[in-house]
């Protein structure tokens, strides 16, 4: 699904990713953990196509295509979805309008007809119920006046509607209380499938209690320095990151 080779990236003249390698096969959920400033958010932003980053070297292959050559909207239409760490408030653009435009953009790309307005609204209502979102959401602007938790739920709602092939979740757990975390995790888990891969970028192990990853990677100073199964996350929670760094330095 996703294959990152030797990726080095700089922002504003400062190198952030330093030869990162990562492979995410179809159907797997990978967690990327790491201390602040290790390059976690840069990785998800670069994968989604945010400009302002300079690719110094390396390749990113997604379903056999050169992902970095595509503009962000093309990536989205090809099935890449980024759940933002800080979802943007856009007063004046309606939530449902955006959802529908986004879904139709994907469908058009696949050569499918536009979604029926009535069926679409029924679908949105169904998913909203799963995410326990209030009815007022329908008439509001994108993330307009939403609490932190509502914004994160809205990201997962969009993901449910768009059904991406590769989902990147950037610190989706940050700012969530335990109830909201459960709802968000249920939403994410409902999307697990053999055809869909997910990359969870997170600072804490907490999220992984609810979304069990197939692999856990430690990102430090722009590189993956250790990989393992979900037990690695538990160990990190207990012992912190320093021992991994020391281990990597010794190697």
């Amino acid at each position, binding site marked *: 699904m996703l294959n990152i080779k030797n990726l080095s990236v700089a922002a504003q003249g400062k190198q952030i990713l330093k030869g990162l390698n990562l492979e995410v096969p179809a159907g797997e959920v990978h967690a990327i953990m790491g201390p602040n400033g290790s390059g976690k958010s840069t990785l998800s932003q670069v994968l989604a196509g*945010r400009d302002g980053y300079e690719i110094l070297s390396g390749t990113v292959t997604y379903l056999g295509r050169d992902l970095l050559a595509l503009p962000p*909207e093309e990536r989205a239409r090809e099935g890449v979805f*980024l759940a*933002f760490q800080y979802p943007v408030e*856009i007063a004046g653009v309606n939530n449902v309008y955006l959802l529908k*435009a986004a879904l139709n953009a994907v469908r058009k790309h696949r050569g499918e007809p536009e979604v029926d307005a009535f069926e679409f609204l029924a679908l949105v209502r169904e998913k909203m119920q799963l995410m326990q979102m209030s009815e007022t959401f329908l008439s509001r602007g994108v993330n307009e006046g939403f609490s932190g938790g509502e914004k994160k739920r809205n990201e997962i709602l*969009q993901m449910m509607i768009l059904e991406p092939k590769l989902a990147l979740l950037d610190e989706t757990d940050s700012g969530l209380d335990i109830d909201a975390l459960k709802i968000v995790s249920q939403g994410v888990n409902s999307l697990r499938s053999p055809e869909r891969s997910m990359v969870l970028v997170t600072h804490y192990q907490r999220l992984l209690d609810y979304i069990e990853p197939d692999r856990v990677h430690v990102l430090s100073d722009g590189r993956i320095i250790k990989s393992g199964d979900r037990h690695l996350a538990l160990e990190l929670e207990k012992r912190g990151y320093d021992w991994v760094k020391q281990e990597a330095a010794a190697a």
Partner: protein
Amino acid sequence: MSVAPLPSLPVALERLRTLFAARGGKTTPVAVAQQAALQQFISLGLPTTRDEAWKYTSLRRFEGRALALPESVTAVDAGLESRLLAADGWQRIVFVNGRHAAGLSTASGVVTGLRVRTLASILRDDPLEAATLLGNDDVTTSARFDLVNRAFVDDGLVIDVAAGAHLAQPLYLVFESSGSDRATLTTPRIIIRSGTHSRLTLIEHHVSGERAEHCVAAVTQLSLAEGSQVEHYRLRREGSKVVHLGSVSADVGGSARYISHTLSLGGTLSRLDLAVRLAGSGASCELNGVFLADGTQHTDTHSCIQHVVPKTQSSQDYRGLADGKGRGVFNGKVVVHKDAQKTDAKQSSRNLLLSNTAEIDTRPELEIYADDVKCSHGATTGQLDPTALFYLRSRGIAEDEARGLLALAFVETVLKGMGIEPARDYVSGIFRQYFLDSKALTP
């Protein structure tokens, strides 16, 4: 009537003088008032960018016009109906080149509490009243073209709303520039007097096809008696060659409320002067508007609110957009007079630049002579938020469309204030088409 020869006038003024002379000599009280107005305009000279009120707006595009008097029009330019609001059940009064066109207006059934007369009929039947209406009250430098209107006006409307009358339907006034590709000078004048505790919704709509090269010097004067309310839509969407130099003035009495919504779109050079005088205790005004300049258009909105007595309120919310090499100007002046304690004045001007070659100048101007007042203002000019743009694109929305949606969102917040649905839909439809569809402002 003869115009005294003046040596070497600037060409634009010389043209006005010749044009005035071509209307033929009369010696009625009206003609005397009109000549006085012209004389005053000529002796003051054209405003220049050295005048504070015209600092950002050059009249070169006006000066370049070889003005002509309106001719009687036999057929209006194609597509008039498509330029107008879908206005079922409203009384519609149409002017073509500043003159009442009965054939295009809807039958003026009797509406209780509403008296509508054309200025032409008053000029014909009651020269004394006409001379009074054209008065000789002071004209600010900012609204200098009021004098041109006074000098040349031969039609318009005088609207009286009876005390206590609540008019259920908006009154829809259309000003179409049509039938000529010469720089026809049109000078409609609307005078509105609302009786105590009456309510009126007025839609003033300036339109033209793309062919028009008219120069429109329109004036609207409102006088709101105690406790009355006037909601005034001034929508302007004209062809790209039109020059429009218009003004609105409102005198607001005690506890009366004036609400203004403006749309400024099209025309190579346009200027709107909006002067409100809050003259009675408890008087208030709410002004909002949106303008867009694209291509090489220049559009200027100057508002001026005078808080004359204690306990008056004003709020202003303007959104400006400029694309291409367009240039927009917003100047919002608030004057709080010495006795006007407890004044509450809010002003917001937010502007969006859609290209690197566009320019918007915005300036709040506060003159406060009272000490117990609440005055706030905010002015911003910026570009589309790159994070919001990325957010939309990351959801599969193409870059152009994402830009359009964000620009539209910027405008929509002001449109929310427009309570009359056909008017709001019209304005919103124009921007929707511009930003999501054709990128053209052609009417």
